[in-house]
């Protein structure tokens, strides 16, 4: 179901996504796959032996050539400035995983699938969207993604390509800080009215996955339940105060 021992991975590529987010593509020896939604624990060790561990969701689909993490650089962070600013191709990184099973979606779980992301909380949902596409799944899916500005949308180019190529996938952005001139979409935080417009009615029993900063996740999950959605079909993953959009 997963692997516990720490092992060394090698950075295969560092891809800038936004001003504050990079994708780390990793070569992990003997990687035996993961499920969309799972994460890795990353461990950094300082010269004096001090260690810091952080969890990062895997954004790549299980069949991708590398294991990819989307790392948001937090200015006061202990780990992310190193991962998102200093790591280079060929560097090594200690990690364990894949880990997690609760916040996992595979195409055979069906849907309809409602994905709600705040900021870098899109990472595990991106693994689900990518796996859904890779598997040729026609499970209806909607992604509602809250970001500060359009430039802060991670994976934007790929999301737009996937959206355009697939009638059963809809992607909606909520831009909370600034919107481009003439922006036709939402220009506010996610709220109950928006969820009611974007989601399926509760009677269609969508399977919902909500990930991002704790406040957003709890507000969205609360709104979904208040709208009549079955709490047992609303799964949440809280990132804490990270990257509040």
């Amino acid at each position, binding site marked *: *179901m*997963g*692997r*516990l*021992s720490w092992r060394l991975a090698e950075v295969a590529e560092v891809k800038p996504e936004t001003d504050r987010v990079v994708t780390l593509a990793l070569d992990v020896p003997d990687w035996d796959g993961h499920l969309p939604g799972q*994460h890795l*624990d990353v461990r950094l060790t300082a010269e004096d032996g001090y260690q810091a*561990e952080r*969890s990062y969701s895997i954004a790549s689909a299980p069949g991708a050539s590398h294991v990819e993490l989307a790392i948001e650089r937090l200015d006061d962070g202990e780990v992310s400035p190193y991962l998102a600013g200093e790591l280079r191709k060929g560097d090594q990184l200690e990690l*364990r*995983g894949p*880990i*997690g*099973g*609760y*916040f996992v979606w595979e195409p055979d779980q069906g849907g309809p699938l409602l994905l709600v992301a705040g900021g870098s909380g899109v990472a595990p949902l991106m693994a689900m969207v990518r796996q859904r596409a890779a598997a040729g799944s026609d499970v209806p899916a909607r992604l509602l993604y809250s970001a500060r500005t359009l430039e802060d949308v991670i994976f934007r180019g790929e999301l737009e390509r996937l959206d355009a190529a697939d009638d059963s996938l809809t992607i909606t952005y909520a831009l909370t800080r600034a919107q481009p001139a003439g922006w036709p979409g939402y220009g506010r935080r996610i709220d109950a009215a928006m969820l009611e417009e974007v989601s399926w009615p509760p009677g269609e029993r969508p399977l919902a996955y909500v990930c991002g*900063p*704790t*406040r957003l996740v*709890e507000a969205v999950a609360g709104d979904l339940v208040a709208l009549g959605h079955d709490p047992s079909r609303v*799964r*949440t*993953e*809280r*990132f*804490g*105060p990270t990257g*509040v959009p």
Partner: protein
Amino acid sequence: MSMDETDLRLDGNAVAGMMAELFGFEMTVEWGGCAGCGAVNQLGALLVYAHGMGVVACCPDCGRNLFRIARGQGRWWLDLRGLAWLQLDEQARMSR
């Protein structure tokens, strides 16, 4: 907006690695019962506060402290008094 306990609240997913290291199972899919209100939840859905070397996990239904885990100096400390029961599925056993 100032940061308070709400912002720092995590869930069972955030400590999946620590729990797996301790129990040897992927604990977020395992089920536990609250000794207070009787609610049954998967551990991934529990509310978690992680401070330094310790973790407190609470019932999402009533807020009761279900278990605490701390580690240090080569030892684990476990306080499970809020948990009425815990079910471990062999399918969720992790490999080393």
